[in-house]
């Protein structure tokens, strides 16, 4: 049997593509995904008929997707539209290629939540605690951040640093949805959605689609762009309390630590080697939880870590250099993985990290995943 760590540097991302991000009521999920797919195919120059693996997330019907793209692969997986599926999907596709299920896998994600007025709460997503009015992932993250404030003295001004740094990056990204700079004061005076969280702690809701194309390292040499290698990954679920959705009493600290350690050990890199962190910022507190769980700072010390632009380009650890979910686009982790690839290819223009060699992705969720990408 192959061990997971033997997959170090064996699988590469060869093509990435995305649509514009915004409000597109005139196009459906298949249409958005098709545009992202075409952009990824053009990015690497692959003959699309070579693609023999298809993974879709938040797309209604995989077979219709295949029909739309003219694909008849020999490996298909469909994942629900939860953000945590991005890290899971990339790891699943990598292992499928390594196992020989397919040679070239296209991973597609599309979201039409903006134009279709998705609320992410209330009767749209029924839960155990509706009779008490407790609903929405944002409220669960507010509940966690209140605990973090009480346990460690973390302040909302420190939390503001996360949103301010990530918005700064969005201002350097011509494709980002939100491109006006914000300050800590702007954060502190924004309206509450679920106190202690305010509007600027919440991710955007926008339409768009993303595609990644993966293959083996050997085959990756044949394409237009330098391959970016998947050097390490790690995983840990936390399924209790699932009745309190998107919540963990411990901020997923044990799971993030475990997934991070697996990824670091597999890739053979440490914190000092990581040039940028792409963190699933559905709500700003997840960035704090990630920094602690991965060990970039001690437990309870993330508030101090992020102060004075610690997460901005040129700071201690640049986070979400594309503007993340908070300010670039709500592509539920997929666009962050694309940004990792673009940083390592050094295609990022004004937001490029100099000499970028190692980028880490992390999603602190009930299905925690971390992936380490390198230039190989």
């Amino acid at each position, binding site marked *: 049997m192959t061990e997971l760590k033997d997959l170090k540097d064996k699988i590469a991302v060869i093509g990435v593509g995305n649509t514009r991000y915004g409000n597109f009521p005139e196009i459906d999920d298949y249409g958005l995904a098709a545009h992202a797919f075409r952009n990824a195919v053009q990015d690497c120059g692959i003959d699309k008929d070579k693609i023999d693996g298809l993974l879709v997330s938040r797309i209604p019907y995989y077979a219709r997707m295949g029909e739309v793209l003219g694909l008849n692969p020999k490996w298909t997986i469909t994942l629900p539209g939860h953000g945590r599926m991005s890290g899971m999907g990339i790891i699943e596709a990598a292992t499928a290629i390594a196992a020989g299920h397919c040679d070239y896998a296209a991973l597609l994600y599309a979201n039409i939540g903006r134009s279709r007025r998705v609320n992410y709460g209330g009767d749209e997503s029924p839960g155990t605690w509706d009779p*008490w009015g407790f609903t929405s992932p944002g409220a669960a993250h507010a509940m966690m951040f209140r605990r973090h404030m009480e346990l460690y003295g973390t302040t909302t001004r420190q939390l503001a640093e996360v949103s301010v740094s990530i918005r700064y990056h969005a201002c350097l990204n011509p494709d980002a949805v939100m491109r006006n700079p914000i300050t800590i004061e702007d954060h502190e005076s924004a309206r509450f959605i679920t106190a202690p969280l305010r509007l600027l702690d919440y991710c955007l809701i926008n339409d768009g689609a993303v595609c990644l194309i993966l293959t083996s390292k050997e085959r990756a040499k044949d394409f237009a762009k330098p391959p970016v290698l998947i050097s390490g990954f790690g995983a840990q679920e936390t399924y209790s309390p699932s009745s309190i959705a998107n919540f963990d009493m411990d901020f997923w600290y044990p799971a993030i630590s475990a997934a991070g350690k697996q990824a670091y050990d597999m890739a053979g890199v440490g914190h000092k080697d990581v040039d940028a962190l792409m963190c699933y910022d559905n709500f700003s507190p997840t960035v704090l939880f990630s920094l602690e769980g991965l060990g970039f700072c001690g437990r309870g010390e993330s508030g101090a870590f992020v102060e004075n632009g610690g997460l901005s380009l040129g700071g201690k650890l640049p986070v979400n250099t594309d503007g993340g979910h908070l300010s670039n686009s709500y592509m539920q982790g997929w666009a962050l993985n694309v940004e990792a690839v673009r940083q390592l290819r050094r295609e990022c223009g004004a937001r490029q990290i100099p000499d970028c060699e190692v980028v880490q992705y992390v999603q602190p969720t009930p299905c925690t995943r971390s992936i380490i990408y390198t230039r190989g």
Partner: protein
Amino acid sequence: MSYNKPLPRLDTLNKPFWDATKQNRFLLQHCPSCGDTRFPPGPVCPKCLAGEQTWIEASGKGTLESWVDMHRAYWDGYKDELPYRVCLVRLEEGPVVVSNLVDKTENLRMGAPVKVVFEAVTDEVTLPKFTLA
């Protein structure tokens, strides 16, 4: 005026809980085989997988683990009472539950002792809520 906030969806598993709240009693599902106690109820014990589960009456006492103030009405019934307060309570018996804290004070601390109060919101449903003890 009729009650226009969400009501619990009763099923065979949770019906004993909602029957008991009507009598101002707070029940927790309990495993007679291994002693595990939980809320919400499940079809088997998640520790030992025993299928026969019973109920025990909780003391109604606990401590405040966290709280939030909801400033957005995801249901129309909340529009006129924003913000409203939701709390996370660790019960004396172990399980953690979400509820409403009826106190309006800003002077709250994690770990504060709380106790259950019962509010009959319709003829059929009584909601357990919490207040500072």
